[in-house]
């Protein structure tokens, strides 16, 4: 099948290459690497068409949203805003496979990088550590820390795939690290698993129970197929298990882990945490920073308790151990506690058309037309509060990035403005 399609794609240039008998030509290699034929599927009548994944993605997204809101609909939900997350990346033999382009390893690294940035963006008070599995052994790449750059640098430096994979070793290592974390922090593990088996030195079931006992929330993202042990691990520890279909899906699945998960009930005790809000130190003055032990000019913060100099926020003061944040960080963490309600899907029935026409045929967010191909009304959603219509892209954007509804905001604003004027 693949051979035929390949020829189809490169058909027009075949004449030139006919005498080129040795190996595959340069032009051909491009197609082989690209695998463009995999993005095609045959429909009922035998015609080729690109695989239409947008509907699937949207359905997945809605399910996610519903799950979140169903959880939120219960009682006042508590979320762990201070998270201690270990990302475990499986760099075993299977990570060298080429079904993700250019290789699973590279794709994983790329998206983990994006994830780390997004994670700190959404959870400024949290910390990440990196662990890799290689040759059946788990290695700590970086310890828990709040600086995205250090993690990314450590991650990108070590890209090679070797040997077997061992889930148990990784869990044991992470467990050791996370056990020392203070009790108000939420312990999480996110495992990117590309292998299909795990070679363990002992009984992994015991390790899973140990993790469950110390309240580690383990989530796994598989890269090839569903594995029983991963599913079991996630079920036991309350994490999410998902398997990526392709690269885009992998990215989505990863980013799903960026917002904080609901706290484990018995673990969610309200706590007071001592925090410092350091001020930006005097520009132009020279000082040795406590984090890198280097002399730097300006651009730093001063711990309010011990007056040590740090470069980045948020962090923990290396001298006195105070958690140092800035107020925008706290504010940014809030939207997780007050999410916007999911939008209702508008059924594409003609009876509802009148109502719809009244409100206009354009998406309130991006002003694109909501009429789909063939003058049929395309899929769209509506906000429960302001009753404005939105297209699917805006729906995702509003819920996942913007965190407020433009419709509702535009109703409220005149009021607040007028109030202020009074």
């Amino acid at each position, binding site marked *: 099948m693949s051979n035929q399609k390949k020829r189809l794609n490169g058909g027009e240039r075949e004449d030139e290459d006919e005498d080129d008998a040795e190996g595959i030509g340069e032009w051909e290699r491009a197609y082989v690497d690209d695998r463009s034929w995999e993005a095609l599927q045959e429909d009922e009548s035998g015609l080729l068409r690109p695989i239409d994944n947008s509907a699937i993605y949207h359905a997945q997204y809605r399910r996610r949203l519903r799950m979140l809101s169903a959880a939120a609909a219960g009682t006042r939900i508590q979320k762990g805003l201070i998270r201690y997350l270990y990302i475990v990346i499986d760099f075993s033999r299977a990570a060298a496979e080429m079904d993700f382009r250019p290789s699973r390893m590279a794709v994983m690294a790329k998206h983990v990088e994006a994830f780390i940035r997004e994670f700190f963006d959404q959870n400024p008070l949290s910390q990440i550590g990196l662990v890799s599995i290689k040759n059946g052994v788990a290695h700590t790449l970086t310890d828990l820390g709040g600086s995205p750059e250090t993690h990314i640098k450590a991650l990108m430096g070590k890209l090679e795939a070797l040997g077997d994979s061992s889930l148990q070793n990784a869990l044991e290592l992470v467990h050791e690290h996370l056990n020392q974390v203070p009790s108000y922090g939420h312990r999480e593990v996110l495992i990117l698993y590309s292998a*299909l088996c795990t070679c*363990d030195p002992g009984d992994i079931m015991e390790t899973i129970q140990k993790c469950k006992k110390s309240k580690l929330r383990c989530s796994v993202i598989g890269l090839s*197929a569903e594995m*029983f*042990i991963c599913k079991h691990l996630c079920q036991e520890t309350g994490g999410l298990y998902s*398997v990526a*279909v392709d690269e885009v899906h992998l990215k989505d699945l990863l980013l799903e882990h960026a917002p904080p998960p609901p706290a484990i009930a018995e673990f969610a005790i309200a706590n007071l945490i001592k925090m410092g809000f350091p001020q930006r130190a005097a520009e132009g003055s020279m000082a040795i920073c406590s984090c890198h032990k280097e002399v730097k000019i300006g651009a730093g913060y001063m711990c309010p308790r011990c007056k040590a100099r740090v470069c980045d926020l948020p962090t923990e003061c290396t001298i006195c151990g105070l958690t140092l944040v800035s107020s925008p960080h706290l504010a940014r963490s809030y939207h997780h506690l007050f999410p916007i309600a999911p939008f209702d899907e508008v059924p594409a029935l003609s009876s509802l058309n009148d109502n719809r026409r009244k409100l206009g045929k354009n998406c309130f967010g991006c002003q694109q037309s909501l009429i789909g191909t063939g003058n049929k009304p395309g899929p769209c959603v509506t906000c429960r509060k302001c009753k404005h219509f939105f297209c699917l892209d805006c729906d995702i954007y509003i819920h996942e990035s913007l965190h407020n509804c433009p419709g509702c905001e535009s109703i409220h604003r005149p009021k607040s403005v007028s109030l202020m004027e009074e």
Partner: protein
Amino acid sequence: MIFKIEDVEVYFPYDNIYPEQYEYMVELKRALDAKGHCLLEMPTGTGKTIALLSLITSYRLAHLESPIKLIYCTRTVHEMEKTLAELKLLHDYQVRHMGERARILAIGLSSRKNLCVNTKVLAAENRDSVDAACRKRTASWVRALPADNPNVELCDFFEKYEKDAERALLPPGVYTLEDLRAFGKKHGWCPYFLARHMVQLANIIVYSYQYLLDPKVAGIISKEMQKETVVVFDEAHNIDNVCIEALSVSVRRVTLEGANRNLNKIRQEIDRFKATDAGRLRAEYTRLVEGLALRGDLSGTDQWLANPALPHDILKEAVPGNIRRAEHFVHVLRRLLQYLGGRLDTENVEKESPVSFVSSLNSQAGIEQKILKFCYDRLHSLMLTLEITDTDEFLPIQTVCDFATLVGTYARGFSIIIEPYDERMPHIPDPILQLSCHDASLAIKPVFDRFQSVVITSGTLSPIDLYPRLLSFNPVVSRSFKMSMTRDCICPMVLTRGSDQLPVSTKFDMRSDPGVVRNYGKLLVEMVSIVPDGVVCFFVSYSYMDGIIATWNETGILKEIMQQKLVFIETQDVVETTLALDNYRRACDCGRGAVFFSVARGKVAEGIDFDRHYGRLVVMFGVPFQYTLSKILLARLEYLRDTFQIKEGDFLTFDALRQAAQCVGRVIRSKADYGMMIFADKRYSRHDKRSKLPGWILSHLRDAHLNLSTDMAIHIAREFLRKMAQPYDKAGTLGSKTLLTQEDLEKMAETGVQDMVY
């Protein structure tokens, strides 16, 4: 949920029902209404058992004026327990909604080994010795001995049961084997004899096929069942083989030697009795004069084995004069053994019909057909008279008499085959004389005749029109149901070529081709690296499996497989295989992943489920044809062609394909499950083979998957596994409902049955 099917109110213990379950009930109800037999094929994992049980019990409740009885036959004890557990659930539900009116008595019946609670008896290792140990304690003459005799050991449970004879009853309810044992222990009654007694009174009986099909057992256990009985054979795809086995006997040299020893022992016993208690032998003689019909005067517990021929064949005539005396009978048996021994000395394969066998027996050993016919009953009577209790030691002579009676009774549908050595090992002499039955309808005929409805059901009964011919009956309903699915959770593929485009097959001339062996190996190596957890492989025979694994070992393919997954192999040893299976499951559980090499038609293929992660992929290497040079098979094929006009080729393909379907069907046991099936042989792509697969597999076999090479199969498998790992909606979308609620059913009842289901 409670809903109506025509005039019957059906009590179903779950809130939702699958559409095919509903349809199944509708068809079953029609068969019950028509008081006829039916054949129903429904894929495994669709809740066949509960649909069946809930309809039949509800049907019974709706017609309480003439209540029907249900006999549910299963193949294994494990299945029996599962059925009873479901029945319990259903019964609780019915009692909750209908009150005391719905109470029934349902019991499971099994051998002494599974039911006995006497620890001393249970210490025996196999079934026959448990039976013998029980008889030693419960036979009437043993119990008649004075109680203070220190050599006599009685079973307390049986004594208590006999003492409370009238009061020893089971209150209504559903009893699994475990419940029976617990009940027996609590009241001090023997659960086995209690269960056997309650069989006559119970509303539902769950037991093994043999209790109905094997005439030796059926004569005792099932003889007094009422006509208004529904008999269900579950997992009945092999029912013809069970029928045939029930009437086939094979005699080897060891059997003859054992029989000779038994005869010597009997001889001694006779002499001893002559000296001490000659009256007994005389009493037996007079009894025999009056005919065997008087067997009933012996007490119930002493009847242990009935005649192997079928009930209607036992003539109500007197035993021939020349075997009435014990000594004469022993002489006859000696001559018979001698004759059989002489026949076993042959150097050629011989095949004979019963008629010519009997006539040559008559001319050479002077034993008439009529004498032969009575051998079994005469032996039985003699052993009772001689008060022999350790019946397990007397198995060889029983086998020989069994043989004699069958040869004497049936002139058609059987043949006698004598082989001096095993075909596969011609230099090791191992003579065997086989009386093989070719006609499956012989054993099952009395069941069809005696009972109102017989339901034959399984996950694989395709092609469904062949079964009525093989078993010679007329079903009023025969249907095959499809599985309604929320997603395409099975992915059958036909792999015809290796990655080098050379065809693969286990055809005789190709199977040892190194290219084929290598391609099969490569297929497995590739597959184990992309399939998670468990992979099961089926080969066509033990010898082929041994050969191919040895080659893979030499060429390093096995090593490559072991890098990904652990390898386990089924052997002919049951204990070894059980251990291998246990470790296989553990390897799948802990994430190491494992491959299980097994054989079609083996124990594993028939009875072990590889559901969920225990089997994500099953590879069927080759088409599992029977060993076509086997004399027995050839004789059967000839018989089938002459009698039922079934062509040899048709029958062989049918048999091979039902085995293949059975093997791959192990992988999926419920709708939430998913799995891939690879048929690795180019012959599967041919229409005559493929079309014999069950409908629920065929409907998922897309045209594009009919002629795959290894690399294409790999690609499909990758995509499939990724797709299946995604979360899904269990209830199905609006277009194709796969779970029906009460409202759906009511709506359906209004619009008519047919058009709403599909």
